[in-house]
């Protein structure tokens, strides 16, 4: 059994930042384990730009943002195991790793940081009746198929849920020449960031139908259509389509932590960060928090004592989800409310002097 001081599970932005934070705090025996063959996590499939404004002051694509951290990691003598999954986290802090090249091994670390990201809520969790033919995808899975696989998987789409990934997919599919019949949202307002509603839907004339949901899927081999219910008046209509994309929520992927805690409280040696902790809108927040968690874990390794969890930076979230109808700046992902200054308008959070108003 190999030993290390800190084991980081997951090589997305959270895990990479945690490694850097722990290194900066003086920790030297760090192991990062990533399931995929490459580091980067969900960023690898986010080919749109809008990452890193708070951290780097420029707008990067997901892979560009990831590359900056990958390069920094590659400059450090930390161990990185890709193509390897942690399949079990035992209550004594031993992790069981499985990989094609790395084999099956146990690793015992003084502290473990779980940065495993999140998963998408599948359609089966919704009260949608009817059949389950081919042609139903979660938005993230669809994004991966297009951006990492180059695959084509439908022509006429209905998108259920106006989460960010769903809206980003709507835009991307529209750019690929597909028909997006509608984005349906059961709440009275868009579920994702206001800037995504404007940039991805409004600019592409994709209808957002609020207070609407899918109640039934039709088709035996491939999706042939869906029944859409208007929740305000109960009216139902049939919409023909060949693909249904769902963007109905993300769930932190922290089963390993539940396993280690045996159903009770988290053990002292275990830290969570990134989307495994809660779902973040902005990667900058993920990185910032990841570094703080890395430092805290290094501190725990040194002192054997766990301090209160570092405060979670949550400041940008409320501003970003600017209330519909209120004018915000859509020049960058922060989506700041506009504030009046001596020289004109500027972004309330980023201080940008050339804001792009949403209306």
């Amino acid at each position: 059994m190999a030993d290390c001081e800190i084991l980081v599970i997951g090589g997305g932005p959270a895990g990479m930042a945690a490694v850097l934070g722990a290194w900066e705090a003086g920790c030297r025996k760090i192991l990062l384990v990533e399931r995929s063959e490459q580091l980067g996590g969900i960023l690898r499939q986010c080919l749109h730009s809008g990452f890193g404004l708070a951290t780097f002051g420029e707008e990067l694509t997901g892979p560009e943002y990831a590359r900056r951290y990958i390069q920094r990691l590659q400059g450090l003598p930390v161990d990185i195991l890709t193509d390897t999954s942690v399949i079990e986290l035992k209550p004594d802090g031993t992790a069981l790793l499985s990989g094609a090249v790395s084999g099956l091994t146990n690793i015992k670390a003084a502290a473990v940081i779980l940065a495993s990201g999140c998963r998408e809520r599948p359609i089966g969790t919704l009260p949608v009746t009817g059949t389950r033919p081919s042609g139903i995808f979660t938005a993230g899975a669809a994004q991966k198929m297009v951006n990492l696989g180059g695959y084509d998987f439908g022509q006429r789409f209905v998108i259920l849920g106006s989460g960010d990934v769903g809206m980003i997919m709507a835009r991307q599919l529209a750019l690929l020449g597909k028909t997006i019949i509608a984005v349906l949202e059961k709440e009275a307002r868009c579920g994702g960031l206001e800037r995504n509603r404007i940039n991805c839907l409004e600019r592409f004339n994709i209808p957002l139908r609020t207070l609407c949901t899918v109640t039934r899927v039709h088709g035996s081999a491939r999706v042939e259509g869906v029944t859409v219910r208007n929740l305000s008046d109960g009216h139902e209509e049939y919409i023909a389509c060949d693909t249904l994309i769902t963007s109905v929520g993300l769930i932190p992927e922290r089963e390993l932590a539940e396993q280690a805690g045996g159903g009770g409280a988290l053990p002292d040696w275990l830290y969570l960060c990134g989307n495994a902790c809660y779902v973040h809108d902005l990667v900058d927040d993920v990185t910032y928090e990841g570094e703080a968690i890395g430092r805290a874990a290094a501190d725990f390794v040194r002192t054997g004592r766990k301090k209160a969890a570092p405060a979670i930076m949550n400041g940008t979230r409320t501003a970003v989800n600017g209330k519909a109808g209120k004018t915000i700046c859509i020049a960058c992902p922060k989506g700041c409310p506009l504030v009046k200054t001596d020289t004109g308008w500027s972004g309330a959070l980023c201080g940008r002097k050339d804001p792009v108003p949403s209306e």
Partner: protein
Amino acid sequence: MEKYDVIVIGGGLLGCFTARALTRYRLKLALLEAREDVCTGISRANTAIIYSGADTKPGSLKSEMCVRSAQTFANLCSQLGVRYSPCGSLMISFGPRGEEVLGKKMAQGKANGVRGLALLSREEVLSIEPNVSPAVTAGLFAPEAGTVIPWELGIAAAENALHNGAEFQFNSAVTRIEKVPDGYVLEAGGRPFHARGIINCAGLYADGLHEMVAKPSVRIYPEAGDYYILDTKASGVIRHIIFHEPEEKGKGLTLVPTVDGNILLGPSKIPSGEKNDAFPTSKEGLEWLCGLAEQVIPSLPMEHVIRSFGAVRPNPFYVRHDPDTGLLHRDDKGISDFILHETDGAPNFLSFIGIKTPGLTCALELGLYAADRMAALLGNLQPNDAFNPNNPAPLRLKELSEEARAQRVREKPSYGRIVCRCRGISEGEIIDSIHHSIGAKTVDGVKRRTGAGSGRCQGGFCTQRIIEILSQELGIPVCDIQKDRPGSKVIGGKDHG
């Protein structure tokens, strides 16, 4: 034209076990299945229970087979390399009406020869199932009930039949049967087949096939049902199969702690009249399940539902031609016992029409029954001395010790690469499932054989990878991989990309 001694129509549990039982004789045998794989029909959508035999009337073939099957089921599963959970069942009542039913079943079960039945007090029920509603009044415990994965059982029986000499033809829907002097000529998948005898195991469609050679005498009047599956996070909430006997007249809820550690809830009962083999779910049915679940197990974590699915019950009824109206007249009561139908004008043509619960439990017995009847009809058959009842179990890494598993990964690195993160299934196990003798050809085929894609993310993370592995192993393009039936391609759009 290929000539066979016996052709089995349909590759559900009954067809697979009938074919397996026929390979105990020396004969030329084929199974014709309409779909791309075995166990895609009723055998894929049921409650997965091995019944003890206390639920059916003494003296019936059903009861006799069921008791014998339950008592030997673990043995059958170990022969076939199939996982079995002998968890026992607990029928619970909530008042005097229910208690009376428990008493009746107790007496009936004893008469049928069910072993170990015990009436439990309210306290005893709550001590073995603490999450059952405190309103429970009594229970009937049956230790010899259990649960199995129906398609795992069916696939193993099919593979065993194949190893013992049966041929399997997929994508071969029988569309015509003609009586000829020395047997029958069938048309299936556009090709002709000749057989001296036919055993019709076509599930929901068995009545239609029977009527290709005989006048209508039995018809299937289908009825739909709905199920929910809860994530393995809910495992432990119940330990036994639970049959809820409602106080008001009507159907009770059934809960099953499955072999994979999920909880299965259902089925509802929805009049449907439709033989829809895409098995749609209904709003009424799913709402009924939620409502009852709350009454029976108030703490059941319904937030852990990961999927719902539909089922269709093949209810059989005798029908008669009414000369006055020219219409078919249906008996008031359905056929309750298991019957292997034969018709005067169609010798050596045997039909299972509408084999419902406990058809899964009795699949082995029903298969033997049909095979032996056919052997008697054909006469002069020699036993197949080479018949081997054992089927090797697929490698399931999770069942190995850490050392054994590490050794497997060293020998074959793809056993180390985890593809389905929710169920922890490796690339190597998926590749194995594709190259098994009745191998997976579709995404759902891989799911049925390995469990990959059946966990809490429902394939969100792994479906694309599974398609790529199927493509690579089968040597066909990614855009030709189907989810299940023809026309269900996943990538490449609706067959036009």
